[in-house]
């Protein structure tokens, strides 16, 4: 698991240029990042890393960093 892969996934799905997404980015920073995009991101992360997030965890994530930590917690 690499942080850069996760950032790439965000960039692909939100359809933004490289460098737009950082660990600090939240949904309010990018117009296209609505609730449906979040669902899409979660599905892509789950498929990519072969994991399944807990519903309550998904509801508390805000920043890209939060997603990274969530993936890391599952990969342990």
């Amino acid at each position: 698991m690499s942080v850069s892969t996760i950032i790439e996934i965000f960039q692909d799905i939100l359809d933004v240029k490289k460098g737009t997404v950082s660990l600090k980015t939240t949904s309010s920073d990018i117009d296209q990042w609505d609730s449906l995009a979040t669902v899409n991101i979660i599905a892509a992360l789950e498929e990519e890393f072969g994991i399944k997030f807990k519903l309550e965890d998904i509801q508390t994530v805000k920043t890209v960093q939060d997603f990274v930590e969530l993936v890391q917690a599952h990969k342990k």
Partner: protein
Amino acid sequence: MLEVLEYPFDVIKILRKKKVLKRHLIKKESLINIKIAVLGATTTFEVVEQLELFLLKAGFKPTFYACDYGQHYNVVMFNDEALLNFKPDIVYLHVSPESIDELNKSNIVSKEKAEIELNKMQKVWEKLNTNFNCSVIQDNFEMPVVRSLGNFSLTSTTGSFQTITLLNQMIAQEANKLSYLNIIDRFYLSSKMGLDSWKDYSLWLSSKYSLSYKAITHLSYTISKIINSLLGKSKKCLVLDLDNTLWGGIIGDVGKEGIDLGRDTSIGQAYLDFHLYIKELKDRGIILAVCSKNEFDTAKSGFDHPDSVLKFEDFASFKANWDPKSKNIHEIANEINIGLDSLVFIDDNPVERDIVRKEFGSLVSVPEIGDDVVYYRAILDGADLFTTTSLSSEDMKRNEYYKSNQKREQFLSTFKNYDEYLKSLKMKAEIAPYKNIYLSRISQLINKTNQFNLTTKRMSLQEVEKAMVEKNKISFYARLIDKFDDNGLVSLIQGTILGSEVEIDLWLMSCRVFKRTLEHSLLYSFLQEAKNRNIKTVRGRYVPTKKNHIVSNLYKEMGFLFVGEKEGSQIFEIDLKKYSIPNNPNIIIEEL
């Protein structure tokens, strides 16, 4: 990049790269516009996004109307204005077990639950058909994942098993009755994937999706295939490699006796099963061809193997030589007289697959079947390239037609001139107004014919039905029989009368009867009918496309005068008062 959209799909790439894929696909030339209303009992956002990709890849440019989830009945029954103004060509109803209100009530028997649900659906279908005269596509139902009755849910008369089974049967029967209704077999798709993968409960809780993302990909693909079929873009011909595709081993090295085929070995059994599957495709009307790097006689001898289900005669075209496969594929398409976009190419060699993809782009389908015979059949089947929404008896006979064409060609070579040949064919045609029994064949011809087609006007089955009863229409079909074969219903002409004029808005003929002068007979019958109805002027239009060059001079050849161009069409006219309708000496017109 686009191969991620080929079955069995790269779901993660699709999820990530949707936006890039769309930007890439939308650049394609001559995409066909199509309006689709997606009415969901549950969330449809992702279904629309993925369906759009599959349709773009197939050559369509869809625009969508989508209602809020759960509003699927209301927007139809209470005439939602946006939907009315949208005027969809196709409506897709996205339903699921979650949308069946009474599914888990224990005080109603299953049969009644199914009837209540069916009744609701019937009203929606009818209303859609009246309002829009469009095709309707609807899901049937997968089994619910949880069953409080456990295994007993199977036998319980109020249980979900019986409710879903009955409902699915009823829907299938309705689809048989209603020509405009087409069912997506979610029940099969979910069984194939397994319910645990098909559903994603947390996605349901968070976003009201009735399916997992992976399932959405498979479902959207199937919807796109149905739409392909409705618009006549399904594949027609399977082009097969031989060595390590239809049998194990290189026949040039090991000879007919040495190839692996038949029940004696497990690998041989797999090739045999693949033969049987291909034979089934042939029996339902898919044309077969061989494209192999081999000596012709050696290749042919493989089909004399005692365990070979497929025989040399099963192939409408047989190319075994050392030319590049792309050249042979061009020749196969020419010989059978179908478009390259009707072909599916099967080869175990990834290099050959790649060359064919590069040469033909997305025209020729090249499933990623790999090089292990164990998976050939499943991958070809899953790719669902020959989807149909109805099987006409013409489909079942198609291979025979092409075989008879070969006989005719051999016969032709024995004649001094073409006229003599035409006379010797002893052709008879039946030309008559459209009849109900031919409806499915008529609509199939309208939606599939590309070459001999003056206007390439497409019509749904319902539109044909409507045109049949309208008094201001003249519509004739032609069936053709010759000494070799009954060619079936092969040509259509349709005109709309306005005052003392009639405009031919559709005129087409199947490629299997090109150059038989049937077009003369059909036009003469049409002109005679126009004369009988006191029509003075007959107007024809030629709308040029990439594929219909063959008829670019037809109106001139038939004695029409070119009167000008209008919106990309060439307009031709004939003055019936000054025109005496000739007789075609080559074809006898009678009731067959």
